[in-house]
């Protein structure tokens, strides 16, 4: 279809141009063809010259300078990025070191604290033990003394009782021996 229409146009242009021009295609009137070619050449060449000599180099230079500018900015940004990376690494290193140091201090403090605590505990236990011993000794003494008092009271009471009942004063040493024997028996029966 396209080739057919092209063929028709070629035929009309080259083989039937005068007839067609008369019928209605003013483009095929060759009267001003050379004039148009001449003016086209002049105007096109002037335009081409201006674009090639002035506008094109200016725009090329501008685009190149912008490209270089952007390139330099990108390089600078890359440099900054590397510096930031370096600083970040240093920062991370410092943080890690600080953490380790803090850990060490914490462990040391913990150990010191534990040592102090155990020391204090030992001291406290010693005090407690000595106090306990003292208290036990006091209790024993008190017990002993109480027992003696009880035996004396029991002897005195028995003496008075026997005196009142029999009117005879018993021998104190015999009475005390009897009471001691009874109290020993009592003790034994309690432990059994």
């Amino acid at each position: 279809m396209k080739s057919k229409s092209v063929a028709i146009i070629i035929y009309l242009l080259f083989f039937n141009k005068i007839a067609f021009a008369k019928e209605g295609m003013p483009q095929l009137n060759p009267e001003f063809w050379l004039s148009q070619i001449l003016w086209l050449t002049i105007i096109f060449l002037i335009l081409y010259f201006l674009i090639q000599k002035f506008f094109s180099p200016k725009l090329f230079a501008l685009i190149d300078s912008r490209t270089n500018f952007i390139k330099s900015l990108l390089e600078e940004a890359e440099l900054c990025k590397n510096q930031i990376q370096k600083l970040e690494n240093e920062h991370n290193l410092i943080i890690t070191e600080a953490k380790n140091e803090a850990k060490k201090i914490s462990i040391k403090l913990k150990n010191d604290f534990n040592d102090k605590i155990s020391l204090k505990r030992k001291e406290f236990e010693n005090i407690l033990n000595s106090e306990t011993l003292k208290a036990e000794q006091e209790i024993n003494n008190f017990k002993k003394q109480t027992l003696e008092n009880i035996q004396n009271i029991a002897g005195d009471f028995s003496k008075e009782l026997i005196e009142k009942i029999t009117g005879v004063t018993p021998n104190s040493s015999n009475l005390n021996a009897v009471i001691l024997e009874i109290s020993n028996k009592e003790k034994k029966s309690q432990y059994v």
Partner: protein
Amino acid sequence: MATNPMQQFEVHRIGPSLSFNGVDLSFTNSSFFMLISSILIIIFFVAGTRRVNIVPSKIQLLNELVFNFISKMINETVGPNARPYFPFILTIFLFILTLNMVGLLPYAFTVTSQIIITFFLAIVIFIGVTIVGFAKNGIGFLKIFAPSGVPIFLFPIIVAIEIISFLSRPISLSVRLFANMLAGHTMLKVFGGFVVSLGIVGGWLPLSFSVALTALEILVAFLQAYVFAVLSCIYLNDALNMHH
């Protein structure tokens, strides 16, 4: 008002008659609109490149847009070795685009609807590309007619087809632009005539068609300029980077 839709393509003399050896070289309406288009292009570039900055102004941005568009097109079709031909392709593209666009204005003349103009541009490109081809490749440029890997019995036919294809380049290049402009403007004129003849009652439909056609013609104007420039680049590519 002219009723003949072809009347808009008539070339007539402007100003005094100028002839050389009996050949009329007068300044015509076609030449006038070529001049107007060129002045517009120059104004466009002067305004865009007067004060160039790294951060561009609007007009500078527009300049750079056109510049980069053509630069990219040439790089994609021909490659980086086509930089010396960049101003020529840029001039061709802008010249045809401006001629097409100016031709769409009411009462303006469409220079690219003249077959002699498009044919002359095409033949200049054809001859230029052929010269570049021979200058770059010497007699080896003739290999363009002999593709490699063709069976020997098909070789004469293929060579003949390639020669015809090569020689028809200026015709196809020029007729494509000419025919598109001619058809578009004729249609616009016909529909414009309908608007007038049908009057205020029935003229709305052809008017809306005219508006739509104008939009289409703006697209065609750009597209044809682009196609002309791209095909010029492709022909240049054949001359610079021979693949056969």
